């Protein structure tokens, strides 16, 4: 007998994602489908607008990985109009990019993903003294390892549970047999869950300083709007720069003393998850953090490239401007293209909805027909995965020393081979290792900014092509970045000073992609195949793999029988 499980919406993510999975007789996932259940439509909203305004619209796609769409958008306009941004602006953007990466990865680990591995209720059984000993063992440099600290955390947690109002911790799969951590490790993780909440709201002040606010800091075509004048009381001055340096120092401490030790400790209890959830084995990264101009791809700290079939011996070149490389297909997506076309490069992209799915409420979707609001992007015809694992693998396979060092250290600490990376746990570990690199680079970029200022350059914006009268009547461009969740690119077509066409291919379009015209599965779908479930009424294992990609969505899981009968329904409030 096959059982079909529906998880809709998936929680502890942002947005609306539906997963349907069919279980085979051995309670493993035999088939899976991923459906985006939300219409975005920003491409339609942007048509006819001033290209210089586009960043403000795009950035508001989401408040979680805020800034990344603004960055991709201003870069697309600058690419189309051949605008070179000043060095300081480039570095400030790098600092904002890295700040986002750190904040987002830490929040994902502790607040969105850790509860797939950490049993909060079990933490109540922990002995504070033993928890303190564990904390000192895994992170001798951590300043928060005292017995009293864990006694306090335990008391806070007990008070919370006794109140009967679990709030964000209500109704998860506590006590599920797939939870393997001892109570002390659970208490440690819960303590750091709370620490991370406090820390992340401080870190984002870097965005506030340069961009005026977080979420949704301000960007500018041609540079950055925040001028630098060290003696000024209103511009980026020495007090502001010192504040940024302090925040970066705290970030490095948090990542190295708390996050990485926790990640390695938790990972060591789940070795079987290095064998589960690998998926496609195809990886793509556009790269970012330029050290020269944005077109100097070789200077990027995060390198660009693609890896196919887990072949780390070859990193293939990627060009978002090559119309033959990236195309979006709609065979299984609720869109239609004109003239019967089924595959289009984003510069020629179309956003015309064509909903053919069942009338809600419905029990299940049909994977042989159209079944998602996401298109299916493909690189040279291949379904690929994007995100921290893809970036770490491209960096590792490119032979970059910093990448090789952090990866080899982690593999050594966990005593697993490099092939362990192709897994759910590999994806989660890669995110942590990338955070470690990003924390270091954040200080490096800060130092670059200071050095450039000391050299006498305080320019932050290039106004030469600010006025639309200086633009050609028609221009095309693309702007890429690496969002925390993976490769992101915006394609723009400017005509007579206005946006004629705008297409956005976001990381989750790649990862949560439906099948394409050849029937190739998307990254989530592929990664779920073969996943064993201990209890089909509590599909914790599905959440582990889906969350390892860091989709940004919230949750009611409906578990359905073969005939669509609801076996159980679980609501998780987040």
């Amino acid at each position, binding site marked *: 007998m096959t059982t079909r499980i529906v998880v809709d919406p998936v929680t502890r993510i942002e947005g609306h994602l539906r997963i349907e999975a069919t279980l085979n007789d051995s309670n493993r996932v035999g088939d899976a489908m991923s459906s985006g259940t939300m219409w975005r439509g920003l491409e339609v909203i942007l048509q006819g607008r001033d290209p*210089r*305004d586009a960043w403000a619209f795009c950035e508001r796609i989401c408040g979680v990985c805020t800034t990344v769409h603004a960055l991709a958008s201003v870069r697309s306009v600058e690419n189309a109009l051949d605008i070179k941004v000043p060095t300081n602006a480039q570095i400030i953007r790098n600092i904002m990019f890295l700040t986002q990466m750190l904040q987002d990865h830490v929040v994902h680990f502790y607040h969105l993903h850790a509860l797939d591995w950490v049993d909060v209720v079990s933490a109540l059984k922990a002995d504070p003294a033993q928890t303190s000993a564990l904390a000192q063992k895994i992170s001798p440099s951590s300043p928060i390892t005292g017995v009293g600290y864990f006694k306090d955390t335990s008391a806070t947690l007990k008070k919370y549970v006794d109140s009967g109002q679990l709030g964000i911790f209500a109704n998860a799969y506590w006590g599920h047999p797939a939870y393997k951590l001892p109570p002390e490790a659970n208490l440690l993780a819960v303590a750091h869950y709370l620490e991370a909440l406090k820390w992340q*709201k401080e870190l984002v002040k870097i965005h*506030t300083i340069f*961009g*005026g606010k977080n979420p949704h800091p301000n960007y*500018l075509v041609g*540079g950055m709007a925040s001028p630098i004048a060290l003696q000024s009381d*209103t511009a980026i001055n020495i007090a502001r720069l010192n504040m940024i340096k302090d925040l970066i120092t705290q970030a490095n401490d948090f990542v190295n003393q708390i996050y990485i030790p926790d990640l390695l400790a938790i990972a060591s209890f789940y070795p079987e998850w290095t064998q589960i959830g690998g998926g496609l084995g195809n990886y793509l990264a556009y790269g970012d953090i330029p050290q020269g101009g944005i077109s100097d791809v070789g200077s990027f700290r995060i390198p660009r490239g693609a890896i196919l079939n887990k072949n780390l011996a070859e990193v293939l070149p990627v060009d978002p401007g090559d119309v033959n490389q990236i195309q979006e297909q709609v065979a299984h997506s609720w869109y239609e293209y004109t003239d019967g076309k089924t595959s289009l490069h984003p510069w020629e992209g179309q956003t015309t909805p064509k909903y053919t799915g069942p009338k809600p409420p419905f029990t299940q979707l049909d994977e042989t027909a159209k079944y998602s609001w996401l298109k299916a992007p493909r690189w040279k015809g291949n379904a690929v995965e994007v995100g921290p694992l893809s970036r770490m693998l491209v960096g590792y396979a490119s032979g970059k020393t910093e990448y090789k060092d952090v990866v080899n250290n982690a593999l050594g600490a966990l005593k697993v081979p490099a092939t362990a990376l192709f897994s759910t746990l590999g994806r989660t570990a890669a995110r942590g290792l990338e955070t470690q690199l990003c924390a270091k680079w954040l200080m490096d970029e800060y130092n670059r900014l200071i050095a450039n200022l000391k050299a006498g350059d305080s320019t932050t*914006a290039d106004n030469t092509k600010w006025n639309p009268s200086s633009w050609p009547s028609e221009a095309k461009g693309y702007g890429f970045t690496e969002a925390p969740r993976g490769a992101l690119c915006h394609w723009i077509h400017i005509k007579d000073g206005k946006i004629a066409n705008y297409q956005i291919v976001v990381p989750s379009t790649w990862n949560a992609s439906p099948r394409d015209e050849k029937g190739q599965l998307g990254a989530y779908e592929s990664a779920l195949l073969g996943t064993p479930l201990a209890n089909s009424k509590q599909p914790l294992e599905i959440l582990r793999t889906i969350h390892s990609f860091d989709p940004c969505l919230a949750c009611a899981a409906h578990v359905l029988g073969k005939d669509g009968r609801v076996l159980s329904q679980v609501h998780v409030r987040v």
Partner: protein
Amino acid sequence: MFYGQRIHDKCYRRAFFDAGQFVEAWDDDGARKGWCLYKMGCRGPTTYNSCSTVKWNNGVSFPIGSGHGCIGCSEAGFWDNGPFYERLSNVVVPGIDATPDKIGALLGTAAVVGVGAHLVSTIVRQSSKPIPAEDVPTPSKGE
């Protein structure tokens, strides 16, 4: 209280507006001195919010404080009231024929441009449809 006054009413750059000292281009001398962003499209004069007093992220900054004009994101339909970088004089204001520039030109001084903008936005505020009584929330006890 949060939406009771214009950002411009309590903006720390207000004195520069009144004095006719404006940022004319990104990163120019005026920008570095923190002059008024009105000519760069700032929506502070027509946006009812508390950003200029409460500020963001525990009072660290707000858009104007970091050199970019307000885009008026708390105003109804602000997204169609652009482009964001065109100064407010280009906004067609219902109920009045003259733009702030024309009013300014009539009165003949740069500083009075500001008075025009205030006049215009006040008229917009006053002429906007009154909120029906049933939509006004009743304050809870202790407020």
